[in-house]
């Protein structure tokens, strides 16, 4: 049975990738594991393990782009009219101008053209790198081409197009982007277990609330709140306890320590380098509870 665990949580920089990497490393000792870096705008898994990934396949993810045959164009203007992104415009001469940065790649223009003047072209939207990480687990890293506005589409493809593949594993750990948009929906859509990583500040709590709202909107029941940097003075601990209790969620704490920050910067795993530390033990407990 495959278990899909999504590490998400609303606010950025709370430690999602740290949790995802350490957790998947521990899970890989218990079963066949794949880690999916779905934070395609800024994938941090490679840096967090100092590049200890052997890439064995790179998939270029392509999107549609219209290619115009001006010889065939009858200047009817239908493509301009139907383009939902206003990325086409017609000059007084009747020539069609295409603004690629606005284009979503929906292909409506090609579908409505009565003269077959538009054909299918491609543009690179991003890369999926498949490989093996730390010698213990498989990994997929998604990365969008800078300037592309549709990270949600790329994330949806990363998850949906690899879903079959996921079924070959015992554990699939998805490192989600921050936020609560449709791309985050993709990462939780098929997940049995959600980890909402947060930090004990009013801002962390605020974003946690919005994220839990998203997870519950889609019927997710196994939501686990993971409070990183637990112990910083003046933290919003009561707030978090209240949310967890009210909604009947599970709570895990990762104590604040310099070791965690240093490990992240150096690209080593807390659970591998400092297995005796409190931080490592707290992630062990999390892994145990999830496996």
């Amino acid at each position, binding site marked *: 049975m495959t278990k899909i665990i999504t590490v998400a949580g609303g606010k950025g920089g*709370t430690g999602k990738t740290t949790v995802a990497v350490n957790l998947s490393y521990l899970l890989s000792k218990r079963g066949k594991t794949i880690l999916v870096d779905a934070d395609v705008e800024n994938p*941090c898994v490679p*840096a967090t393990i100092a590049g200890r990934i052997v890439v064995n396949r790179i998939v270029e993810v392509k999107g549609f782009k219209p290619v115009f045959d001006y010889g065939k164009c009858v200047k009817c203007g239908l493509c301009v009219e139907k383009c939902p992104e206003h990325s086409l415009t017609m000059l007084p001469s009747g020539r069609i101008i295409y603004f690629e940065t606005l284009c979503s790649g*929906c292909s409506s223009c090609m579908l409505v053209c009565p003269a077959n003047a538009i054909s299918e072209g491609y543009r690179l939207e991003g890369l999926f790198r498949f490989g093996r990480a730390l010698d213990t687990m498989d990994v997929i890293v998604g990365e969008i081409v800078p300037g592309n506005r549709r990270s949600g589409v790329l994330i949806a493809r990363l998850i949906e197009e690899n879903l079959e593949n996921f079924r070959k594993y015992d554990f699939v750990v998805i490192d989600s982007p*921050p936020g*609560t*948009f*449709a791309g985050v929906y993709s990462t939780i859509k098929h997940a049995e277990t959600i980890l909402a990583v947060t930090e004990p500040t*009013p801002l962390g709590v605020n974003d946690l609330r919005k994220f839990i709202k998203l997870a519950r909107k889609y019927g997710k029941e196994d939501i686990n709140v993971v409070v990183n940097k637990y112990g910083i003075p003046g933290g919003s601990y009561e707030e978090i306890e209240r949310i967890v209790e009210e909604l009947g969620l599970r709570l895990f704490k990762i104590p604040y320590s310099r070791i965690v920050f240093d490990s992240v910067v150096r690209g080593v795993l807390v659970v591998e380098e400092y297995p005796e530390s409190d931080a490592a033990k707290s992630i062990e407990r999390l892994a145990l509870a999830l496996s």
Partner: protein
Amino acid sequence: MEIVVASGKGGTGKTFVSSNLTYFLRSLGAKVVAVDADAEAPDLLLALGGASENVYSREVYRSRKAVIDHGRCVSCMKCFETCRFNAIELSNGKPVVVEEYCEGCGACSIVCPSNAISFVVKRTGLISCDVSKYGIKVVTADLEVGGRNTGELVYMAKEEAHRIADSEGAKYIVVDAAAGIGCPVISSLAGADILIVVVEPSPQSLKGARRLLEVAESFRTRNLLILNKYDLNPNFSEKVASTLGIEVLGKIPYDYTIVKAYASMTPFLAYSSGGRALKPLVESFRTLYEGVLK
């Protein structure tokens, strides 16, 4: 003048910088409007002490979604084959629209032979304008959970801020951008004059900042760097500064007082009676004001 605070990677201190910069400008007597463009996790108003008055909130309904009339559908699967966004799935041999994935592009309805596909407009989010505890107007974009069209919402919030700034004679607009380099960040950058990149000394943050600057290139913003928590790894901070090669506005040390200020929902500059970060932060803002904004 529009100043955008962004980072590429989340959690490096964007909201910390933007809330305090806004507060700083305000305490100089300058008029300033703040925009929370992190529509998926908006926190700026909180960081500025919370709302003392809600000026208005406006629901935005702009997200077009396809709807299939199964009474008319002849199960030809053309829509399924045509949709480029995984937004049509098959359920018991019938096509169903996954609303979260639907871009409302209309391609499916063009190919549908039985006119079974129509469109509805769903909630995109909320735009609100509040006066914060410190008398600062904050325009917040708040995306519907699971929503798309974040960039559009950000544009609307910025337009709103410009309208307010014009009518009140405010010279500065400070935009707190989202994490990442995607749609909302691109909308934040469009039309901005100054980009403040906030980094922390980690390879992850460096990479995020590089990707951000790559995106910013086409917008011709003046780019400035704030090295946050620089003392956690001074050598790497130097590396970040030299790799990015943009003007360094300041280096802010790690300071527990910042967390405490957050905990009391007070801008650090209003809270601190002298944390380590106070002086360097004020210095950077002064450099910015004297050298660039004035």
